[in-house]
């Protein structure tokens, strides 16, 4: 896994993560997406679907940033710092 991440060209990574975050932004911003679940009473894990829609976007944002951080750490792009508080 680490080798794959190390081997991936920076441009590929930028495109993958860029597309991922843009997709989430589109899902959050554009009416056809969120209005498609508006008023739906389907229950997912005990929570109504419209609530789950927003929670999922937030969750995916967090996972995306975590993945990006992991990739940058593996590639040694995050310099170690002096001991912090």
């Amino acid at each position, binding site marked *: 896994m680490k080798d794959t991440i190390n081997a991936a060209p*920076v441009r590929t990574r930028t495109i993958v993560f860029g597309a991922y975050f843009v997709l989430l932004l589109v899902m959050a911003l554009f009416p056809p997406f969120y209005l498609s679940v508006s008023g739906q*009473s389907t229950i997912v894990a*005990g929570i*109504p679907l*419209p*609530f789950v829609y*927003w929670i999922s976007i937030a969750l995916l944002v967090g996972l995306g940033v975590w993945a990006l951080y992991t990739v940058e750490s593996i590639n040694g792009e995050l*310099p170690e*710092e002096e001991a*912090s508080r």
Partner: protein
Amino acid sequence: MIKFSSGSDLTITFGLIGLFLVLMIAVLYATNRKSTSFSDYAVGGRSYGPWFVAMSYTNSWWPGATFTAFFALSVGGVLGFYALVYATLGVTAMYLMANRAWTWGRRFNLTTQPDLLGMRYNSPAVKRIASLIGIVSVFPWVVLGIQALATLFQFASFGQWTVTECLIAGVVVVLIRQYWTVSMGMRGLIMTDMYQGLIAYVLCAALCILLLLGSHTPFSHLSQLPPKMLIMPGGEHSTYGPWYMFSLIFTGVIGSMCWPMSFQRIYTASGVRAVKKGTLLTILLVGGFYCILSLFAAAASNDPNVAANPQHGWFIALFDVGGPWMLAIAIVIVLAASIGHVDGCVQVCGTQFANDLATWSGPRSDRQLTVLAKTGMIVFIGAAAILAYLTFNYSRLQLLAQISYQGIIQLAIPLFFGIFSRRGNKQGAIAGMLVGIAIAIVLTTIYPDDIPWLGSLTSGIVGLIANLVVFVVCAYAIKPSPAEQVRVEGLFGAAQSSKVPMGKPGSVTT
């Protein structure tokens, strides 16, 4: 104000408030360290790790109104959850801009967001205009924050204190707390942000989970919510047009890094890694806390008292569950959030006054800057306290707060272009911000909420579009001098070189 029919025990509510304040002061004294320079005073010597950055950002992000206005939105249904999305998407920008913002900050000893803009566009005018927009936009929120504390004391006194008494109590608490904000600067702020954050967000989230597992506001109620709570604005039968939610969320996303106190958290970090890891933790704190609170609010809508008074739903729900003790905990949680937010606002405005505005006649020594920052904070909080007292029942203040949000996002164009692109110039930055904010002010005065004939777009978005057009036109019409091109290339090159992977020289990432 809600009247409580039984269980009025002021000893419990004021006892817990007193305990909270005593512990806060103890934290301040235990961690007190004399600042050795203005950078030390303004950004804590760029020395803090990811948890401190995350908690400090969270404190500066969620004001006390999260437990009143936002709680009420979630009691009403799905609309309240939009803030969850814009909060998490917005803070992602901190991750993406971390490398350049932090590296430039350390290299040029930047202490504020306008400082970065001034450096990037090589223009003191850009810095001062951005700083003025920031200070003016933050001001109504401090006034509202103080007034929210008055509401809090109304609950703590079970409605027995008069409005004036509550307001005076709120002002006194804020003024006393600011003594340490002024004297200790960012170090005191960050230490108490950790303490306040643990109460306001971590304790609150844990409490909400416990209550959702109980019988009064059960999690199972979420699966039985009435259909009207599941409808988002902008649909067929909505009073809003299709672009209303877009405007709310987009404003929140791009606005997150425009708020000067949020951006300044980058400079408190000990390095790029701390900012990036701090962003991860911030998403966890900001999103996790708000998600749990909103689910609790929606579940609490089955309480008739909460449904009848959603703005005060947080206090009512907890009082209904556990009487005065739970009400006291609810009050302390809101107090912690409110104080954390007001502190952040006061600190950054004082710092910006000294660093960005009071340097018009030439550079100042570290000692002069520190004195000016302290003076700025005293004047700022004094003015806010007086205005909070004079305008307690002035409904137009809410409008000022709305205008401020539409105004602050006008910083987004020079900020995002300045960090992510080599294009753009000071003329475009200045003209764009001025045009954008003028449009935002005029349109918000006419259309405080949305603009119906534009599909419910908000005034800030219209201002932002004009701002962008002006910025881009200027970028293409006014060519930079060769010296300026070299300077900007140097800036971006410096930030890139700090990203070169260790052991892989030359393998530069974007």
